[in-house]
Protein backbone atom coordinates (compact mmCIF):
# COMPACT_ATOMS: atom_id res chain seq x y z
CA UNK A 1 0.00 0.00 0.00
CA UNK A 2 1.73 3.20 -1.13
CA UNK A 3 1.08 6.54 0.60
CA UNK A 4 -1.51 8.87 -0.90
CA UNK A 5 -0.51 11.98 -2.82
CA UNK A 6 -1.67 14.08 0.13
CA UNK A 7 0.41 12.07 2.62
CA UNK A 8 3.52 12.46 0.47
CA UNK A 9 2.96 16.20 0.05
CA UNK A 10 2.57 16.63 3.81
CA UNK A 11 5.72 14.63 4.50
CA UNK A 12 7.71 16.77 2.07
CA UNK A 13 6.33 19.99 3.52
CA UNK A 14 7.30 18.81 6.99
CA UNK A 15 10.88 18.19 5.88
CA UNK A 16 11.44 21.08 3.49
CA UNK A 17 8.89 23.69 4.53
CA UNK A 18 5.65 24.55 2.75
CA UNK A 19 6.94 27.57 0.86
CA UNK A 20 9.99 25.80 -0.58
CA UNK A 21 7.99 22.66 -1.30
CA UNK A 22 5.49 24.63 -3.36
CA UNK A 23 8.35 26.06 -5.44
CA UNK A 24 9.78 22.58 -6.02
CA UNK A 25 6.44 21.04 -6.92
CA UNK A 26 5.70 23.75 -9.49
CA UNK A 27 9.08 23.31 -11.19
CA UNK A 28 10.18 21.50 -14.33
CA UNK A 29 13.78 20.27 -14.55
CA UNK A 30 15.40 18.44 -17.46
CA UNK A 31 18.16 15.89 -16.87
CA UNK A 32 20.27 15.24 -19.98
CA UNK A 33 22.22 12.03 -19.85
CA UNK A 34 21.11 9.34 -17.38
CA UNK A 35 24.46 7.89 -16.33
CA UNK A 36 26.34 8.23 -13.06
CA UNK A 37 25.46 11.91 -12.83
CA UNK A 38 22.02 12.05 -14.38
CA UNK A 39 20.47 9.01 -12.71
CA UNK A 40 21.62 10.22 -9.29
CA UNK A 41 20.49 13.80 -9.97
CA UNK A 42 17.06 12.52 -11.02
CA UNK A 43 16.72 10.45 -7.83
CA UNK A 44 17.55 13.43 -5.63
CA UNK A 45 15.20 15.79 -7.48
CA UNK A 46 12.39 13.24 -7.42
CA UNK A 47 12.87 12.69 -3.69
CA UNK A 48 12.82 16.46 -3.15
CA UNK A 49 9.42 16.56 -4.86
CA UNK A 50 10.33 18.47 -8.01
CA UNK A 51 7.00 18.43 -9.84
CA UNK A 52 8.04 17.51 -13.35
CA UNK A 53 11.20 15.82 -14.58
CA UNK A 54 12.22 15.44 -18.22
CA UNK A 55 14.65 12.53 -18.59
CA UNK A 56 16.76 12.33 -21.76
CA UNK A 57 19.11 9.56 -22.90
CA UNK A 58 19.36 7.41 -26.04
CA UNK A 59 21.38 4.60 -24.44
CA UNK A 60 20.59 1.28 -22.77
CA UNK A 61 21.59 0.03 -19.32
CA UNK A 62 24.84 -1.99 -19.37
CA UNK A 63 26.38 -4.22 -16.71
CA UNK A 64 29.24 -1.74 -16.29
CA UNK A 65 26.73 1.00 -15.37
CA UNK A 66 25.46 -0.75 -12.25
CA UNK A 67 28.34 0.30 -10.00
CA UNK A 68 27.46 3.98 -10.05
CA UNK A 69 24.09 4.43 -11.73
CA UNK A 70 20.61 4.08 -10.27
CA UNK A 71 19.61 0.96 -12.19
CA UNK A 72 19.07 -2.65 -11.17
CA UNK A 73 20.73 -5.79 -12.52
CA UNK A 74 17.34 -6.90 -13.82
CA UNK A 75 17.22 -3.76 -15.99
CA UNK A 76 20.34 -4.46 -18.07
CA UNK A 77 19.39 -4.05 -21.73
CA UNK A 78 16.50 -1.64 -21.10
CA UNK A 79 16.56 1.94 -22.32
CA UNK A 80 17.86 4.07 -19.46
CA UNK A 81 14.86 6.37 -19.81
CA UNK A 82 12.41 3.48 -19.31
CA UNK A 83 14.41 1.90 -16.49
CA UNK A 84 14.79 5.17 -14.59
CA UNK A 85 11.11 5.95 -15.11
CA UNK A 86 10.25 2.65 -13.39
CA UNK A 87 12.66 3.26 -10.52
CA UNK A 88 11.58 6.84 -9.92
CA UNK A 89 7.91 5.83 -9.99
CA UNK A 90 8.56 3.61 -7.00
CA UNK A 91 9.96 6.44 -4.86
CA UNK A 92 7.92 9.37 -6.20
CA UNK A 93 4.64 8.01 -7.54
CA UNK A 94 2.91 11.34 -8.09
CA UNK A 95 5.44 13.57 -9.85
CA UNK A 96 5.26 14.04 -13.63
CA UNK A 97 7.95 12.06 -15.43
CA UNK A 98 8.57 12.49 -19.13
CA UNK A 99 11.14 10.51 -21.08
CA UNK A 100 12.97 11.53 -24.25
CA UNK A 101 14.73 8.50 -25.73
CA UNK A 102 16.69 10.41 -28.35
CA UNK A 103 20.14 11.84 -28.90
CA UNK A 104 20.10 15.48 -27.77
CA UNK A 105 21.43 17.87 -30.43
CA UNK A 106 21.67 21.63 -30.88
CA UNK A 107 18.64 21.35 -33.16
CA UNK A 108 16.27 19.50 -30.84
CA UNK A 109 17.35 20.57 -27.33
CA UNK A 110 15.15 23.66 -27.02
CA UNK A 111 12.08 21.67 -28.11
CA UNK A 112 12.87 18.61 -25.97
CA UNK A 113 13.28 20.71 -22.83
CA UNK A 114 10.54 23.26 -23.43
CA UNK A 115 9.23 24.58 -20.13
CA UNK A 116 12.27 23.52 -18.08
CA UNK A 117 13.49 26.13 -15.62
CA UNK A 118 16.76 24.29 -15.26
CA UNK A 119 18.62 21.91 -17.57
CA UNK A 120 21.15 19.57 -15.94
CA UNK A 121 24.01 18.65 -18.24
CA UNK A 122 24.96 15.11 -17.26
CA UNK A 123 26.54 13.83 -20.45
CA UNK A 124 29.72 11.80 -20.64
CA UNK A 125 31.40 13.17 -23.77
CA UNK A 126 33.02 16.63 -23.51
CA UNK A 127 31.89 17.72 -26.98
CA UNK A 128 28.28 16.93 -26.00
CA UNK A 129 28.67 18.90 -22.77
CA UNK A 130 29.98 21.90 -24.71
CA UNK A 131 27.16 21.60 -27.27
CA UNK A 132 24.46 21.57 -24.61
CA UNK A 133 26.02 24.51 -22.76
CA UNK A 134 26.05 26.56 -25.95
CA UNK A 135 22.48 25.58 -26.82
CA UNK A 136 20.89 26.22 -23.43
CA UNK A 137 22.77 29.45 -22.75
CA UNK A 138 22.40 30.68 -26.34
CA UNK A 139 18.88 29.55 -27.30
CA UNK A 140 16.90 29.19 -24.05
CA UNK A 141 17.05 32.67 -22.51
CA UNK A 142 14.94 31.86 -19.44
CA UNK A 143 16.57 28.54 -18.57
CA UNK A 144 19.42 27.88 -16.13
CA UNK A 145 22.18 25.39 -16.93
CA UNK A 146 23.82 23.24 -14.25
CA UNK A 147 26.72 21.42 -15.90
CA UNK A 148 29.51 19.14 -14.72
CA UNK A 149 33.16 18.69 -15.52
CA UNK A 150 35.65 16.50 -13.67
CA UNK A 151 34.51 13.80 -11.24
CA UNK A 152 36.75 10.84 -12.03
CA UNK A 153 39.46 9.28 -9.89
CA UNK A 154 40.01 8.83 -6.18
CA UNK A 155 40.90 12.44 -5.49
CA UNK A 156 39.57 14.18 -2.40
CA UNK A 157 35.83 14.55 -2.08
CA UNK A 158 36.53 18.20 -1.27
CA UNK A 159 37.89 18.76 -4.77
CA UNK A 160 34.32 18.63 -6.09
CA UNK A 161 32.75 22.07 -5.93
CA UNK A 162 30.07 24.26 -7.45
CA UNK A 163 30.97 27.44 -9.27
CA UNK A 164 28.62 30.09 -10.59
CA UNK A 165 30.11 31.03 -13.95
CA UNK A 166 27.42 33.58 -14.81
CA UNK A 167 23.81 34.36 -13.92
CA UNK A 168 22.30 31.25 -15.56
CA UNK A 169 25.37 29.00 -15.64
CA UNK A 170 26.58 26.76 -12.83
CA UNK A 171 29.45 24.28 -13.10
CA UNK A 172 30.09 21.39 -10.69
CA UNK A 173 33.10 19.10 -10.43
CA UNK A 174 36.83 19.46 -9.98
CA UNK A 175 37.26 20.70 -13.55
CA UNK A 176 40.16 18.40 -14.40
CA UNK A 177 39.64 14.69 -13.57
CA UNK A 178 38.86 13.00 -16.84
CA UNK A 179 37.14 9.61 -16.99
CA UNK A 180 39.38 8.47 -19.86
CA UNK A 181 42.50 8.96 -17.74
CA UNK A 182 41.39 7.85 -14.29
CA UNK A 183 39.18 5.29 -12.63
CA UNK A 184 35.57 6.12 -11.91
CA UNK A 185 34.30 5.45 -8.41
CA UNK A 186 30.63 5.68 -7.48
CA UNK A 187 31.11 7.95 -4.50
CA UNK A 188 32.93 10.75 -6.31
CA UNK A 189 30.50 10.67 -9.24
CA UNK A 190 27.58 10.78 -6.79
CA UNK A 191 29.17 13.74 -4.99
CA UNK A 192 29.19 15.67 -8.22
CA UNK A 193 25.61 14.63 -8.92
CA UNK A 194 24.60 15.84 -5.47
CA UNK A 195 26.32 19.18 -6.15
CA UNK A 196 24.29 19.50 -9.33
CA UNK A 197 21.00 18.50 -7.70
CA UNK A 198 21.68 20.91 -4.84
CA UNK A 199 22.43 23.75 -7.25
CA UNK A 200 19.10 23.01 -8.97
CA UNK A 201 17.15 23.08 -5.70
CA UNK A 202 18.80 26.35 -4.67
CA UNK A 203 17.88 27.89 -8.01
CA UNK A 204 14.28 26.72 -7.68
CA UNK A 205 14.08 28.04 -4.13
CA UNK A 206 15.51 31.39 -5.21
CA UNK A 207 18.54 30.94 -2.96
CA UNK A 208 21.07 30.94 -5.77
CA UNK A 209 21.55 34.70 -5.91
CA UNK A 210 22.74 34.97 -2.31
CA UNK A 211 26.01 33.05 -2.59
CA UNK A 212 27.46 30.07 -4.41
Amino acid sequence: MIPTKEEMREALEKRQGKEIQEKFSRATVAVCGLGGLGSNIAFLLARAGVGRLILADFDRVEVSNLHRQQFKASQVGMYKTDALFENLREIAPYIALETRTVRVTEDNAATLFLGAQVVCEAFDVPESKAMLAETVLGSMPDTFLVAASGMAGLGSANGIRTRRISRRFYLCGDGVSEAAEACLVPSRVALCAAHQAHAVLRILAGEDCKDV
Partner: protein
Amino acid sequence: MVKINGKNLDAAKKTVAEYLTDAGFDPLRVAVERNGEIVPRALYDKTRLCDGDVVEIVGFVGGG
Protein backbone atom coordinates in the same frame (compact mmCIF):
# COMPACT_ATOMS: atom_id res chain seq x y z
CA MET B 1 43.45 44.19 -21.61
CA VAL B 2 40.87 41.46 -21.64
CA LYS B 3 39.74 39.81 -18.42
CA ILE B 4 39.70 36.06 -19.09
CA ASN B 5 38.70 33.70 -16.28
CA GLY B 6 39.48 36.43 -13.78
CA LYS B 7 42.92 37.37 -15.14
CA ASN B 8 43.78 40.50 -17.12
CA LEU B 9 45.47 39.31 -20.29
CA ASP B 10 46.90 40.99 -23.36
CA ALA B 11 44.42 39.32 -25.73
CA ALA B 12 42.69 42.31 -27.31
CA LYS B 13 42.33 42.08 -31.12
CA LYS B 14 42.68 38.28 -31.07
CA THR B 15 39.68 36.31 -32.21
CA VAL B 16 38.15 33.85 -29.76
CA ALA B 17 39.44 31.04 -31.99
CA GLU B 18 42.98 32.46 -31.91
CA TYR B 19 42.94 32.88 -28.15
CA LEU B 20 41.63 29.34 -27.59
CA THR B 21 44.36 27.88 -29.78
CA ASP B 22 47.09 29.95 -28.11
CA ALA B 23 45.87 28.98 -24.64
CA GLY B 24 45.65 25.28 -25.51
CA PHE B 25 41.86 24.85 -25.42
CA ASP B 26 40.05 22.45 -27.75
CA PRO B 27 37.31 24.65 -29.27
CA LEU B 28 34.92 21.69 -29.40
CA ARG B 29 35.20 21.16 -25.63
CA VAL B 30 34.57 24.64 -24.27
CA ALA B 31 31.78 27.09 -23.60
CA VAL B 32 32.77 30.74 -24.03
CA GLU B 33 30.88 33.66 -22.53
CA ARG B 34 31.83 37.18 -23.47
CA ASN B 35 30.35 39.99 -21.38
CA GLY B 36 27.71 37.58 -20.12
CA GLU B 37 26.62 36.32 -23.53
CA ILE B 38 27.45 32.91 -24.94
CA VAL B 39 29.61 33.04 -28.06
CA PRO B 40 28.33 30.47 -30.58
CA ARG B 41 31.04 28.07 -31.74
CA ALA B 42 30.38 29.05 -35.36
CA LEU B 43 31.46 32.61 -34.52
CA TYR B 44 34.73 31.83 -32.68
CA ASP B 45 36.83 32.83 -35.69
CA LYS B 46 34.78 35.98 -36.36
CA THR B 47 34.51 37.28 -32.78
CA ARG B 48 37.35 39.64 -31.96
CA LEU B 49 38.15 40.36 -28.31
CA CYS B 50 38.21 44.03 -27.29
CA ASP B 51 39.83 45.96 -24.47
CA GLY B 52 37.62 45.73 -21.40
CA ASP B 53 35.86 42.52 -22.43
CA VAL B 54 35.13 40.06 -19.64
CA VAL B 55 35.41 36.48 -20.88
CA GLU B 56 34.69 33.18 -19.17
CA ILE B 57 36.02 30.04 -20.81
CA VAL B 58 34.78 26.76 -19.38
CA GLY B 59 36.62 23.65 -20.53
CA PHE B 60 34.83 20.32 -20.27
CA VAL B 61 36.50 17.00 -19.53
CA GLY B 62 34.84 13.62 -20.09
CA GLY B 63 32.86 11.69 -17.50
CA GLY B 64 29.30 11.64 -16.39
